């Protein structure tokens, strides 16, 4: 058997626009050497990722059932196409859907709750718990031993 080509890990990074996105970008050094694909709710952030693939999904939150559905469907297509090894999100709802869908397909998943949630985990963060292999809060006082865990913050 000859030498195997070293597999480049495929990472899908998902975040809503605004604060979630800014925090996601601050995690970029963790993905050096990986093929990273980005998903956001706002096309205006494309310039922040250089030449990496960048998809846009519908902005969705708890009040809008159809938008949530379209968001989930589009994410499903993206995940089937990109087949990530790891999915990471800093929130909110699109990240939740991406992690749930990718888990079905056997990816490893990371949730980093937004630093703006300083008293308790966000709703998406609580809902994603059964599907997140690494479930993180950015505040020490929110951390618990079964999770969420605290290992640092984006600042």
């Amino acid at each position: 058997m000859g030498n195997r080509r070293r597999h480049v890990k495929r990472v899908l990074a998902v975040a809503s626009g605004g604060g979630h996105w800014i925090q996601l970008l601050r995690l970029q050094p963790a993905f050096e050497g990986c093929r990273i694909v980005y998903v956001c709710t706002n096309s205006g952030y494309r310039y922040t990722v250089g030449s990496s693939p960048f998809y846009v999904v519908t902005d969705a939150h708890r009040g809008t059932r159809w938008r949530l559905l379209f968001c989930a469907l589009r994410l499903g297509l993206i995940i089937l196409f990109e087949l990530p090894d790891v999915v990471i999100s800093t929130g909110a709802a699109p990240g939740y859907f991406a992690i749930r869908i990718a888990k079905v397909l056997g990816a490893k998943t990371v949730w980093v709750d937004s630093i703006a949630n300083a008293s308790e985990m966000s709703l998406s963060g609580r809902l994603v718990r059964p599907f997140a292999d690494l479930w993180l809060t950015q505040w020490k006082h929110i951390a618990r031993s079964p999770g969420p865990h605290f290992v640092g913050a984006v600042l």
Partner: protein
Amino acid sequence: MPFDRLVRTVDEWARAAGRKDVFAQIGSSAYRPRHLESVECLTPAEFRQRASSAALIISHAGVGSILTALELCKPVVVMPRRAALGEHRNDHQVATSQRFVNLANVRVAFNEEELLATLLALDFNEMTRSLAAYASPELLARIREFVRAAPARTRYWRR
């Protein structure tokens, strides 16, 4: 509720530092600033837009303001409102200030003199440099390790 002490001190800083780039939301403040641009009120969207493009945020020590600054990864200088001066219903902003004072991007001034001194001493270049572009080394390391350990899925349908 108005916070004249904050508006007045920032106005004084703008004058002393010769700054022409200060914008303020001043609410019902009776004090009319002369060295900065101000409006009474911003919509939430306008506020976020202004905060996103600001190099520095100066604010009362409200949890919302501090968390917005954190979320947008902006340096922020805060001064707590005090109930005794009619600036708030209670002194919880003092407690909030103490809670957030250790964060990298938060500076707290407990009175006007401290606020003016803090603002005058600010070195914007140093502030940009010290508020590093990326997350804490521990968080990055944990995620890096997680990604490294994640199985490669070249044949996902065979699991």
